[in-house]
């Protein structure tokens, strides 16, 4: 597992240019289908970033969709049932999801590893079943109907969420940017190193003073908060939330996107993986062959694990392109030990 962030490899100007081009997308196309796809893949990107952060501490969460559901339902219940405005509900969704991940993490991450995977898997199912059975609050399988966020008025300029998906597009970008910024900072700070230590050799890390549970819980909670916010945005964008949207397959999709994108980068990997696979998945829903999507996703994961192993993923191709083609750096060949 490598833990270099390509933040330092790829020049800032290139990242800036890419961000600029992405910002201009709505100028070139206002096609609702295209923008919706980009918005949804953006929302999934945030969830995948969270998953990747947890994976950086060496823990496999199989229930990240639970936090999307908790975020979505919290926001839906507060706006629809209790009549709260959008913004407080949005942040409350992140907080609720964060608190659940904190509590679950403090219980399970003491042991971690396979137990963590099993409990998070169960958590995903529990959340889905509660959403299904708690009829008076969640309306069960019929789901809750939400309204889009209220228009924002900025100096005479009105941003209307109801008229077109463009405001959602920028809102999603903001959420991604904030998440990316925080994960980048985590990656470069003491936390990032401690995460690497805890993941790469827990026994050694513990004997060097790192409290395993503390760092696992921090990663899991940060992931929980942002996944919750993404869940809230997801529900408001689709204007409906049902228990069927969040299940085991969604959790597995998050995992697949993270692995295909590559976990060597906390930001680049999730973005590349999600956009690629979400677009592919969206296209595959139109193909009328049963089970083609899981089959193809599985094949892609196998290919990535064979050709880009040890968590390098597709983002590593990007890194290699920069170091080899652009910088023309010679590939480093380790000497064979000779004594």
């Amino acid at each position: 597992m490598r833990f270099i962030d390509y933040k330092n490899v790829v020049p800032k100007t290139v990242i800036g240019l890419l961000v600029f081009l992405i910002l201009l997308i709505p100028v070139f196309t206002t096609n609702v289908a295209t923008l919706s796809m980009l918005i949804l893949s953006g929302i999934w990107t945030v969830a995948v970033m969270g998953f990747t952060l947890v994976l950086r501490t060496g823990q496999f969460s199989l229930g990240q969709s639970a936090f999307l559901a908790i975020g979505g339902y919290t926001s839906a219940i507060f706006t629809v049932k209790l009549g709260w405005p959008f913004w407080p509900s949005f942040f409350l969704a992140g907080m609720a999801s964060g608190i659940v991940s904190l509590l679950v993490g403090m219980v399970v991450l003491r042991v971690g590893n396979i137990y963590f995977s099993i409990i998070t898997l169960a958590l995903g199912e529990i959340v889905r079943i509660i959403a299904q059975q708690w009829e008076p609050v969640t309306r069960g399988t019929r789901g809750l109907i939400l309204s889009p966020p209220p228009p924002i008025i900025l100096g005479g300029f009105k941003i209307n969420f109801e008229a077109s998906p463009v405001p959602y597009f920028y809102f999603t970008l903001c959420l991604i940017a904030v998440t990316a910024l925080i994960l980048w900072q985590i990656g470069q700070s003491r936390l990032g190193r401690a995460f690497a230590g805890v993941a790469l050799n827990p026994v050694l890390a513990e004997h060097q003073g790192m409290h395993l549970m503390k760092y696992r819980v921090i990663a899991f909670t940060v992931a929980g908060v942002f996944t919750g916010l993404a869940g809230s945005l997801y529900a408001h964008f689709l204007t409906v939330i049902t228990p069927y949207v969040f299940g085991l397959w969604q959790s597995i999709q998050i995992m697949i996107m993270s692995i295909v994108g590559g976990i060597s980068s906390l930001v680049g990997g999730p973005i590349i993986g999600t956009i690629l696979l979400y677009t592919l998945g969206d296209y595959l829903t139109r193909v009328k062959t049963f089970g083609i999507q899981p089959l193809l996703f599985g094949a892609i994961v196998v290919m990535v694990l064979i050709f880009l192993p040890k968590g390098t993923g597709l983002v590593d191709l990007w890194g290699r392109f920069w170091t080899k083609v652009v910088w023309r750096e010679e590939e480093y060949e380790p000497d064979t030990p000779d004594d």
Partner: protein
Amino acid sequence: MSYLELKNITKEFGKLAALEDVDLQVEKGEILGIVGPNGSGKTTLINVISGYYRPTGGEIFFNAKKISGLRPDQIAKRGIIRTFQSNVLYEGTTVVESMLISSYQQYRTKNWQSFFETRTWKDENETVVGRVIELVKLLDLLNDTFLPAEGLSHGYQRMLGIAMAMIANPSVLLLDEPTTGMNHEEAMFVVDKIKKINEQGVTVILIEHNMKVLLDVATRVVVLSFGTKIADGKPEEVMNKQEVIEAYLGTETI
């Protein structure tokens, strides 16, 4: 009370007592050698001190504070750092990356300060990098700094183990057979480094199989046999004791 003090330490695995009523005093600044035949409980002793195992009986005090029963990271935070008998590394990292991960305890800045990249964090980062270079030079790893740790030869991996323990800021360093798998010359090289580490003010507890190495480096020697302490004193005196010779070579039968 001594710097590090073990009182009646017992560690039982089921019915097998790996350590039985071991009393041990370690003074500040000394190099204490621990010897004993295979299975005498040397590594168990280090595992108990470092918190990897909880003792089933007895107490350990460090700086007059009780440390037995604490987690390994809490004990490490108090300045007791260990190395391992096998080469324990951070998988897939280079030497410098391993050192930076291990430098966790070098920092006084809090996690949030490093998150916001404050001035103090940046300054401290520079001092830590300086210390990393110093240690890498001391332990002869300078040419391998950017090599993957797993690609190093056994001897250099042992050195990296000591370097990683040193960057974790120890006041007491527990070395678990640092010279395994080395010839005499290489072992003497390690001994030289241990002396230099000791000169930096670090108390060293050293498990060793090789008597020659121990005679050369240790200021005091403790002999363990079947989980009990059978001798404690100056290296030359201990080596000539009847019990020690018996423990190593067996009892004379007539």
